[in-house]
């Protein structure tokens, strides 16, 4: 081995990192772990929120449909009664008209 190569090897020999390097690295990995747990927790929370919103919207839609059906029933009752009364009125006025126009037929 030449002197030059010896010098190169000497200049590139292993050096220890500053004191506490390993602890710093391990501390950072713990931060990463905590962050990941938080991230997963946030993801889980976000997923829960999405599910809840979805479920809420579904329930609200079902409620809306139920309310619509109830209102429809109410409307149909109101309209049937109205229809019946209008028919009565029509029949009554038809009878009046006949008595007026044809009194001899409808005494």
């Amino acid at each position, binding site marked *: 081995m030449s002197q030059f190569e010896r010098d190169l090897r000497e200049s590139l020999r292993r050096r220890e990192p500053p004191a506490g390097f390993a602890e710093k690295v391990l501390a950072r990995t713990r931060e990463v772990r905590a962050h990941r747990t938080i991230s997963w927790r946030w993801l889980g929370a976000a997923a829960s929120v999405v599910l809840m919103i979805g479920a809420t919207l579904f329930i609200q839609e079902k409620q*809306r*449909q139920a*309310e*619509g*059906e109830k*209102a*429809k029933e*109410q*409307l*149909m*009752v*109101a*309209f*049937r*009664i*109205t*229809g*019946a*009364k*209008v*028919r*009565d*009125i*029509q029949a*009554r*006025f038809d009878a*009046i008209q006949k008595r007026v126009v044809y009194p001899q037929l409808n005494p």
Partner: protein
Amino acid sequence: MRKFAILFFMLVASTVSAQQLDLKSLDKFADIAKSKTEINMDESTIKSATSALSEKKVDEAIAKKTIEGVKGFYLRVYEFGQKGAYKLEDLKPLFDQLKEPNWKPILRNKENDEQTEIWMHMRNGEPDGMVLISAESREIVVINGVGVTRLDDLTALGKMDPLK
């Protein structure tokens, strides 16, 4: 012939679906009636009902057509066990309200203590509602339509099956 006094009273609210005539004076009939039907449908309830109507069913198709433009529908039906349970004078508070200038009579008939009236509510010279009042000896019917502007609209309801 049965002595009937039928009062049809249809009230119309103009822009807002609220009643234009006060129906509170009819509350006293609820206390003495054998049976009663009281329906109050404001604009939002009508919208909700409209969304559930199916054009595939005959009666619902009629209803859907009639309900177009209707912003409120108020109905009172009181049946009494015997004649004389009430007097026509008891309906005076309602009829007094029809003396306002924006109410125009379409049909008025009184026969044998039976009273039938149809009135149109006017707003800026245009009809924006209809009232039917039918008063019989054993029954009072008050029908309040908001946004109903033609009698034909209500006549169409006569095609609905009353037994359903």
